[in-house]
């Protein structure tokens, strides 16, 4: 009888852990709706959805890289790089040509990252620190160190179109993001390719022995990550008709925190697209909330840094604890508990 109770409890805990990100989302949403001034209205919620679009889009590809057990620190700079290319080339060729080129440039960054990680076998943290620096240099070189902004009726028409709600609360850019989320979710959780990302992250040798081309899977993950970062940056820049040189800098911290909070482990093999997106949304509500409560932007920066640190610390601590119990025998622990009960 006793044992059964205990089991139910641990099952409940496991269930709670599985759905923790959705619970967190609900808690933040309800708390902010109740207490944050001017939070629960369609204008603010639309703003949140618009703001979250960029990081949600970046999180799609980034989550895949993490599921593969790798890291991509270049996402933020890739977003800026692609945005700057799209806008700079727009002046000469128009979006019709500049956007595909910018997306391809993003994909190229991913290809480079992927090859260096999978074929040359350099640690992905190190590779992407390198590409991060190169991209920063490239971005500044292209722009000469200034922000890029566009003007003209056509350009403004496009930004207006992207930003104006088509359905209640849902402007085309948000709708596009939702479409991406759905496609990526189905792809990652339900297709053979998608499951292969998990297998490679869970145990590279198993995947290789099963005949999965692990190098190709890893490279694909990096390409998807960079491409989605590029797409996110480009859409953001198109909506505002401008690209600043540090527009993507905060995304790294944001997306890394959200992905880990969402339950995608840095060790690989675990996690999911939907969880990351919900986590990004939760963080955005939290940050918007702090602003609505009257705190300045600096508080937001402080909190977001702190959250990343806490999340990384939590994950490290959890695996530190877990490591101590590897190899423990349940039988022996039960014996111990029985012995204690007797006393």
């Amino acid at each position, binding site marked *: 009888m006793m044992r059964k109770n205990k089991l139910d409890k641990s099952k409940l805990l496991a269930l709670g852990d599985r759905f923790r990100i959705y619970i967190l989302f609900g808690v933040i949403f309800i708390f902010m709706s109740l207490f944050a001034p001017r939070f629960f209205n369609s204008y603010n919620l639309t703003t949140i959805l618009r703001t979250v679009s960029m990081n949600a889009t970046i999180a799609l590809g980034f989550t895949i890289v993490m599921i593969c057990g790798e*890291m991509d620190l270049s996402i933020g700079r890739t977003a800026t790089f692609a945005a700057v290319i799209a806008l700079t080339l727009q002046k000469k060729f128009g979006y019709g040509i500049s956007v595909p080129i910018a997306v391809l440039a993003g994909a190229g960054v991913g290809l480079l990252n992927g090859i260096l990680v999978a074929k040359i076998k350099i640690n992905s943290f*190190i590779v992407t*620190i*390198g590409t991060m620096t*190169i991209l920063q240099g490239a971005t500044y070189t292209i722009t000469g160190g200034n922000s890029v902004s566009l003007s003209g009726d056509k350009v403004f028409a496009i930004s207006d179109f992207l930003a104006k709600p088509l359905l209640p609360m849902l402007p085309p850019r948000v709708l596009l993001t939702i479409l991406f989320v759905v496609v990526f979710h189905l792809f990652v959780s339900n297709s053979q390719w998608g499951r292969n990302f998990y297998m490679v992250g869970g145990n590279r040798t198993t995947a290789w022995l099963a005949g999965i081309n692990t190098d190709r899977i890893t490279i694909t993950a990096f390409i998807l990550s960079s491409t989605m970062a590029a797409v996110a940056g480009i859409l953001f820049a198109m909506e505002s008709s401008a690209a600043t040189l540090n527009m993507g800098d905060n995304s790294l*911290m944001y997306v890394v925190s959200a992905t880990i909070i969402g339950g995608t482990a840095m060790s690989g093999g675990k996690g999911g697209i939907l969880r990351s997106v919900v986590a990004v949304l939760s963080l955005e509500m939290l940050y918007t909330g702090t602003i609505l409560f009257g705190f300045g932007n600096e508080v937001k920066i402080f909190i977001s840094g702190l959250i990343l*640190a806490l999340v*990384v610390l939590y994950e490290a601590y959890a695996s530190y604890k877990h490591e101590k119990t590897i190899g423990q025998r349940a039988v022996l622990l039960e014996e111990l508990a029985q012995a204690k009960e007797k006393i």
Partner: protein
Amino acid sequence: MNGIQKVDTRALQTNRFSKLLSSIGIYAIAALFIVLGVVLQSMGIINNFLTTQNMMNIVDAVALLGIVAVGMAFITYSGHYADLSAPTTIALTGIVSVELLRFGFIPAIMGAVVVGLIIGIINGIVIGKFKANPIIWTLAMSYVSMGVIRFVWVNKQIYPDVITDDPFPVMLFDNIYRFRFFNAISLPLIIMLVLVVVGQFILKRTAFGAQLKLTGSAKRTAKFSGINVELMIALAFIISAFTTTIAGLAITSLSRVGAYYNGAGYDFRAVTAIVIGGMTLAGGRGSIIGVLGGTLVIGLMNNIMTLLGVGTFSQDIIRGAIFILVVGINAKTLRSMGRDDA
């Protein structure tokens, strides 16, 4: 004697020669850069390379970067790559020292050192004890430091002469960077050279250095040999934070302003200097003398590129490419040396 016959002799060639080459070699590359500068100048492509002023510029820049790199090299040597919180540590310790200048010069220095050590200790505990990934943790730490700076000082830049009316501490602070022995040798250069000598001694001649080498080469083996690896790793991060703090004081003295952007780029430049100086990211290899050579090469390369009219940011592209190239070559050679060596 079966065991003996089975040894494949091809794999047994000693790499003593390549070892020698890698520590001397970096100075040969530095010399090549000097030759390149002289040649370019004689061809009239660049001006003012071989002038006293330019040489002093190179040496001053090398001194600042060298101070950061010598400390960070301990982290690389311990097998934990790099400290990405170096730039914000430079900024934060700089701001704190300027802020505390109102209480005098000594409290300003002490305050900065305390803040730097706190950052080092936190990094050391989280990475040493809880085994957090060093890159992602120091990145998080840099965001936290940046958050503290933004939170406490908002977007203010603070100037020494505004903080206090007393000219004496301000004068002392200004001279951290500007004081020159015999009107030539700057204080940061002396500090860097002292750090290099001390660092080389610690790494190669002390028990701590030997234990750090084992930790960096094979962490679990080190643990199973009775070495307190958690402490070794923590000390590496504390040493790095300490020299970074010294650099923070010098850089803030140079710019005469405490601001959040001081120190930007020092993390990547330092780790690039470290790897081209022959210290592999796999840990346990290389020397501080090599790192000094790497710093020298970075300094000369930057100087020549600037004289050639290459923009600061375009230089990033070249530095990034060189970094990836060197790391890639290291990874390849390490792997080809034996199947057990991933």
